[in-house]
C-alpha cells in the first residue's frame, strides 16, 4: 500500500508530466506524419499543392512566411475570414492544425518567428490620412479588401493577388501589430505590396498606419449581406395553369428578364431516353451571361448555381414551379460579395416565377 502523501507527491505529478509528454509526442508525430496529407485535404484545392494560390491567396511567399508566425497561421485556420471565402476550420484538432502549420512553415527559407505581440503606439488620425493615400487604393477605403478571390489563374482581374480585408475580424484577431508593421516595412514580393520605407514613409508613419488599421475593430462595417440560413432551400409556387400553358408563360417570363433560354426537356430525358421519359417533370434551363460574368469575378466556384434552372412538376392535375433558392445555397461559400449577388438572383427568380403563375 502506497501512503497517500507519497501518492500526492510523486504519482500525480508523474501522471501530469506523462500526459503532457504524451500530448507533445502526439503533436510532434502528428506534425511529422500528417501535415502534408492534411494540407492536401483541407487547403490545397484553394491555396495550391505548393502554396502558390488559386481561389485562395498564395502562402508560399517568403515575405509572407517571414512575418506570419505560427500563432497567426493557427488563428487564421481556426477563425477563417468571415465573409471572405476562407472558412473557419473549427472541426480540426489542435494537433491537426499544428501539423498543417508545420507543413506550411516548411516552405519558409528559414524558420522565422515574430513573437513580439505588444501593441504599437501611434496617432490614429495621422494614420488615417496616410492610409487613405497609401493603402486604400488596394485595401479599400475602410479596409474591406479587394474584390474576388485569391489569384487570377482562371480569369482576368485588376490585381494579380487579392488584397486582404484589413477590417476582417478574423484578420484582426490573427495578426499582431508587429506583423502588420513588419509587412509594411518589408512589402511582399510577388504581390503589388511594396515596402513603405521604399515608398518614402518613415517608421513613425508606419506605426500610425498600424494604429489606424487596428482601430478597424472599433468601427466595424455594417454587417455584410448574410446568406439565408433560415431561407427555404427552394423557391416554389403553385401555377393556376396547365403544364403547357405554365411552360409557355415561363419561357416568356425568362425572356422578359433578359435571360437566355438554353433548353427545355423532361427531367429524366438524359437517363430514360425520349421514349420512356416522364413528362410530368420538366426542366427549363436558362442563363444571364452578363450576370454570370460578374459572379465569376466574385467567385469562380459559382458553377454550382448553374444553370438558372426551373422545374415544372405536375401532380394530380396541379402544376408547381420551383427553383434552387440561391440565398440558401450561397451560405456554403462564406463569401459576402457572393451573398449580395445571390440576393439579386433570388429576386430575379421570384419575379420570373411570379410572373409565370400570375
Amino acid at each position, binding site marked *: 500500500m502506497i501512503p497517500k502523501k507519497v501518492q500526492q507527491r510523486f504519482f500525480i505529478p508523474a501522471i501530469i508530466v506523462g500526459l503532457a509528454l504524451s500530448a507533445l509526442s502526439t503533436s510532434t508525430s502528428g506534425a511529422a506524419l500528417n501535415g502534408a496529407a492534411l494540407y492536401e485535404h483541407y487547403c490545397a484545392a484553394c491555396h495550391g499543392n505548393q502554396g502558390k494560390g488559386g481561389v485562395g491567396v498564395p502562402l508560399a511567399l517568403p515575405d509572407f512566411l517571414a512575418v506570419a508566425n505560427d500563432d497567426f497561421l493557427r488563428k487564421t485556420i481556426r477563425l477563417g475570414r468571415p465573409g471572405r471565402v476562407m472558412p473557419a476550420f473549427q472541426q480540426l484538432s489542435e494537433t491537426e492544425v499544428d501539423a498543417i502549420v508545420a507543413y506550411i512553415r516548411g516552405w519558409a527559407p528559414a524558420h522565422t518567428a515574430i513573437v513580439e505581440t505588444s501593441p504599437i503606439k501611434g496617432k490614429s488620425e495621422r494614420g488615417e490620412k496616410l492610409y487613405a493615400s497609401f493603402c486604400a487604393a488596394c485595401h479599400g477605403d475602410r479596409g474591406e479588401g479587394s474584390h474576388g478571390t485569391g489569384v487570377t489563374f482562371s480569369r482576368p482581374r485588376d490585381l494579380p493577388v487579392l488584397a486582404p480585408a484589413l477590417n476582417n475580424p478574423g484578420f484582426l484577431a490573427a495578426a499582431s501589430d508587429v506583423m502588420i508593421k513588419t509587412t509594411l516595412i518589408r512589402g511582399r514580393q510577388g504581390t503589388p505590396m511594396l515596402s513603405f520605407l521604399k515608398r518614402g514613409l518613415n517608421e513613425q508613419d508606419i506605426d500610425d498606419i498600424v494604429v489606424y488599421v487596428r482601430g478597424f475593430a472599433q468601427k466595424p462595417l455594417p454587417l455584410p449581406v448574410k446568406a439565408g440560413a433560415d431561407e427555404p432551400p427552394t423557391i416554389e409556387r403553385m401555377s393556376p395553369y396547365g403544364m403547357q400553358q405554365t411552360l409557355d408563360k415561363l419561357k416568356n417570363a425568362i425572356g422578359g428578364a433578359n435571360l437566355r433560354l438554353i433548353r427545355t426537356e423532361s427531367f429524366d430525358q438524359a437517363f430514360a431516353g425520349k421514349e420512356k421519359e416522364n413528362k410530368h417533370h420538366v426542366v427549363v434551363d436558362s442563363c444571364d451571361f452578363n450576370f454570370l460574368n460578374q459572379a465569376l469575378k466574385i467567385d469562380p466556384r459559382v*458553377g454550382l448555381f448553374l444553370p438558372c434552372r426551373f422545374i415544372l412538376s405536375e401532380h394530380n392535375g396541379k402544376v408547381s414551379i420551383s427553383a434552387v433558392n440561391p440565398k440558401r445555397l450561397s451560405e456554403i461559400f462564406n463569401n459576402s460579395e457572393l451573398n449580395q449577388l445571390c440576393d439579386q438572383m433570388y429576386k430575379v427568380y421570384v419575379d420570373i416565377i411570379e410572373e409565370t403563375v400570375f
Partner: protein
Amino acid sequence: MNFNASLKIMLWALILMLSVQTARAEELLMVRIERPFDDAINDLQIAIQEHGYQVARIQRVDVGLASGGYATAEYRLVFFGKPAEMREIEDRYPQLLPYLPLKIVIFAEGNSALALSYNPALLQTFFKIDPLQSRVQQWEKDIRSILNQLSRP
C-alpha cells in the same frame, strides 16, 4: 475594465458570432487536379462511371461567355446520377429535383483544374427526409471518392 480589454472582448464576441457562419468547410467538397483540363475532365467522367453513375450531360459554360466577348478559362458542369434513383426521387420526393441530378463543377486554373460539388449531406439538412438519409450518405461517400480519385497524381 481598461480600453484594450474591452476591445478584445468586443472583437472575440464578433468573431464568435461570425464564425458560426463560417464553420462549414465540409459543405463544399473541392479538390485540385494537377493535370491539364482535358485530361481532368476525361478522368472525371471515368471516375463517375466507375462509381456506378451515368453522366447525364456535360454543360459547357465557357462557350456562352466567350461568345459574349468575355475572357474565361475552360469551365464545365457535369450532371450525373443513377437512373433508378432519379426515377424514384421524381416519383416520391419531387421537392429535391431543383438540386438534382448530382453535379460536379470543373474548371481550369492555369495548368491545373479544380473540381467541386456541394456535399449531398446538405440535402438532408435542407429537406429532412429520413427515408433518404442512407441514400444521401451514399452519394456523399461516392462524391468524396470520385474527387479523391481525381486528386491523385
